[in-house]
């Protein structure tokens, strides 16, 4: 790398920092209201259109949900200003341990920590 390239690289890094700061300051991310029962159903219909939903549990923060679909768990959790969807065997998620009122679900490249307000995991909705 010559001097000009290094200067350009540093300038680019500075510009990136400024643009990210500006994006944070502008507060123009998508609004993310707490999940409601209807909102949860709507999200599930979009992300898992072919899966029948037997029951839905929404976490205490209103930022994630686990739905029972037969012996499968349909999981949605907030990432940034959107949601990530994953499917896993319900039995595996039921084995997750509750720590400080939260359960950490290991789902490949994501590990949401969902709030369990009454300290009961798995919640009644997810029990077959």
């Amino acid at each position: 790398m010559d001097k000009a390239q290094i200067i350009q690289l540093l300038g680019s890094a500075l510009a990136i920092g400024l643009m990210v700061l500006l994006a944070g300051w502008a507060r123009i991310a998508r609004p993310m209201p707490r999940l409601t029962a209807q909102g949860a159903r709507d999200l599930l219909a979009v992300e898992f259109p072919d899966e029948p939903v037997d029951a839905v549990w929404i976490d205490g923060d209103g930022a994630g949900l686990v739905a029972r679909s037969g012996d499968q768990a349909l999981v949605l959790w907030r990432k940034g200003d959107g949601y990530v969807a994953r499917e896993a065997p319900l039995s595996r998620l039921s084995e997750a341990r509750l720590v400080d009122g939260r359960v950490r679900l290991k789902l490949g490249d994501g590990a949401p920590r969902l709030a369990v307000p009454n300290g009961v995991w798995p919640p009644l909705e997810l029990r077959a």
Partner: protein
Amino acid sequence: MKTFDPVQMAIPFFVVAVFLEILLARLGKTKAHYEPRDTAMSLTMGLGSTIAGLFTAGITFAAALWVYEHRLFTIPMNAVWAWVALFFAEDLTYYWFHRLAHERRVWWASHVNHHTSTHYNLSTALRQTWTGGIAGTWLLWLPLSFLGFPPAMVAIQKGVSLVYQFWIHTESIKRMPRWFEAVFNTPSHHRVHHARNARYLDANYAGILIIWDRMFGTFIPEVDEEPCRYGTVKNLGNFNLLHNVFHEWVGIGKDVVAQPRHALGYIFGPPGWSHDGSRDTSHTLKAKWRARTSAAKAREDTAA
């Protein structure tokens, strides 16, 4: 003729345009959403792509030069007709590169990170690959040099195409004039390309001209009743930069190790292909969507 890099020249314009889009969105003058971590990922991918490109630039340019030495014709770099011919030839090459980059997993592995943002704004345009050189998609441009276009000329036109594609990564522009939408790639056409809705998958591969999609049957128009949802079919579960760069490569590696007899399918099959059919490809997702749509229509007709 003096050569230049259109992308390098356009970088200040890219920065100013992103600043403007954010500010105008903040003032409510245009439609754009920016999430800081998503923005950071897109912009860092752009910078990293430039650096990664330096490592393979020598090989790719040397290969183009070698091919050019064995060219069929000698095409002058200073002739207008040559630039017009190259404009169409390069854009057609881009179409097929882009189509392969979506329809074959090994090339999707290097291109997927351009599609992992759940946003569609000008910063998304800069979310460029780090592994394109390794994936070898640059080989597709070699026939242009074999025909006789000087490698520098091809590089310039590739840059022009990339710069053109910057401005179409926006929700701020709803539709261009009808004649423009008919011929050129536009924000509307490219929103469809970045959408993860089943109806929009594997469509609108165009670089500058949308005519190739219309000719080869991959054109899908944006419809107002189904707004685009952006990202990949299975959105990433974290904001980890390296995961974004390498996750599909790692996925290929795991599948090949687990099923060596089906290695070719996992490498060169469409994204989502599996030896036992347990995963969804764009094709199966679209088929399911069509079945749901037909069933819903049948229910409506029965009710009526």
